[in-house]
């Protein structure tokens, strides 16, 4: 594909991916024969109307969902056929998620929420503590470390979520409507944070309805009815 940034090896390589949901008697083709190559360090916005399959695509890349057909290679490894424990391992080490509704654990403090992926990965306590302190500092949350999510503002919550998603230094950061629950100014703040992470080399894939947010990405993918209808490098702005 000549229009894509050149890379020796694609970070993500989807070929002939199909995903069908069965809702009662009717079939919904969420993804139809999707082919996609994403290089390391890209900043991609996936856009499209509701039901176009963009969230399904994101979930599939995040290994939260399985394709019915096709192959998915992540950093050269075929992850389509991995069993669920191996997939959990991949999610733990290589993928970070950010959700529209933050998905923080309400009874845990900001620090404990950030620590969660490290805890799940079985990292020793001392090592966890240093990483969490660093993450809190990086995202300006040091003074909010011991606060529960309900004591944090929306922007702070999303910052905790981003810190949590990136504390393992994943290769890909997947964001599903990251600004959907935020006002314009805090949304802007969050986007800048994500872009800064991208600037450090983390591949960023954002699913959004918001054309302004979508336009900021260097590469836009538009979806309709489970198909990629356009895939273009941004012409308007440069980073």
């Amino acid at each position, binding site marked *: 594909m000549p229009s894509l940034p050149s890379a020796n090896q694609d970070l993500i390589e989807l070929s002939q991916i199909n995903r069908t949901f069965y809702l009662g008697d009717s079939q919904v083709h969420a993804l139809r024969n999707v082919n996609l190559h994403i290089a390391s360090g890209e900043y991609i916005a996936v856009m499209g109307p509701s039901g176009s399959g963009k969230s399904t695509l994101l979930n599939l890349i995040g290994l939260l969902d399985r394709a019915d057909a096709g192959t998915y290679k992540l950093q050269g490894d075929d992850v389509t056929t991995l069993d669920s424990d191996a997939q*959990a391992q991949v999610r733990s080490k290589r993928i970070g*998620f950010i959700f529209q509704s933050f998905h923080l654990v309400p009874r845990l403090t900001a620090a404990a929420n950030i620590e969660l992926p490290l*805890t799940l990965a079985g990292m020793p306590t001392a090592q966890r503590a240093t990483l969490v302190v660093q993450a809190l500092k990086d995202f300006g949350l040091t003074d909010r470390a011991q606060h529960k999510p309900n004591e944090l503002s929306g922007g702070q919550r999303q910052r905790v979520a981003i810190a*949590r998603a990136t504390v393992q230094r994943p290769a890909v950061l997947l964001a599903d409507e990251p600004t959907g629950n935020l006002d314009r100014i805090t949304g802007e703040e969050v986007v800048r944070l994500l872009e800064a992470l991208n600037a450090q080399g983390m591949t960023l894939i954002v699913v959004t309805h918001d054309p302004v947010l979508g336009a900021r990405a260097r590469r836009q993918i538009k979806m309709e009815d489970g198909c990629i209808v356009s895939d273009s490098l941004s012409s308007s702005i440069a980073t």
Partner: protein
Amino acid sequence: MKLIDTLRYATTAASGAPLRTGLLMIAMSIGVAAVVILTALGDGARRYVVGEFSAIGTNLVIVLPGRSETRGFNPANLITSTPRDLTVDDANALLRLPGVVRIAPIVVATTEINADGKLREAMLLGTNENYLQVRQQKIALGRFLSQDRSGHGTGEVVLGALIRREIFGSDNPLGKTVRIGDRRLRVVGVLAEGGRGMGMTTDELLIVPVASAQAMLNSNTLFRILIEARGREQIAEVKAQVLKMITQRHDGEEDVTVITQDAVLETFDKILNVLTLGVAGIAAISLAVAGILVMNVMLVSVAQRTAEIGLLKALGATATAVRELFMVEALLLSLTGGLLGLALGYVGAAILRHIYPSYPAYPPLWAVAAGLGTAMISGLVFGVMPARRAAELEPIQALAKRA
């Protein structure tokens, strides 16, 4: 995920829903407390009865006149149809047996005591100087009966504590003369208060030499012969010898029954243990109910925390890790509830003992262990299903539920 982290996470999860956790723990603790208190009652009954029988003395073999069982045809039955009486001579003869240490013949009757112008009904007990040691009782004042060398009685009487108080009040009764039946006897001692055994208090006894008692009652029969064996191992041997000797002395007719304290104790022990087990079984039903409640609560917990489970999976938790989290939580809940119930049960048993001081309502150790064990096992068994359900949740569907 490390075990300590799993534990910590499960703890915050449980304490994050205090009402649910609290209710569950109450149910579990009531179950365990029921087991503890009911077995304390059952085992208390056992201890009480065993204690009563042990209070008779140690290593006792008891001879009763008459046969309690029929064993075939004995030609002697043709000649003598009524059983021979047990006599003092029988008792003295038994003292010659090798395994026997002491012998106390017993005669019992109701009688009246008349002294200081007061009249009172009392139990008359005729025996010898060994009675005190055989029955392991204590003298509060004076001394016990002396040895009756003449075989016609010594004219001495030992009073029960209550009799002494009611007749003499705080006066010193020693050396005073009392009338019992048609005889005048001299008070030589007073029994210590609170002696008991076989459901009979010694506080209302009048103890006189066996010959005096027999003369008063105009009979030479004994009610019982108490034999103290040299040791626990000799009891069976002594029992056989006693039976043989009495049979011999009674013209070859086996017309007495010999029971050992051990056998009686064992029987009661067995019966009351079965009773305790039965009661524990009934209480265990409440534990099973609590177990089902654990399952119910954990299922609700899984349903409520669907989004959280999805998140954990998105963050890299394996199905095993999720299952462990919920199993540990169920276990933690039932264990804490169980420990709480244990405390509750012990407090309940203590209150019982406070209300009925003579009733040793201590929960047996096996019941405590079984109660706690059942609580944990039910937590484990009933935690499996919810935990599996949590582990099997598809992360994508779980996340779709907005928390």
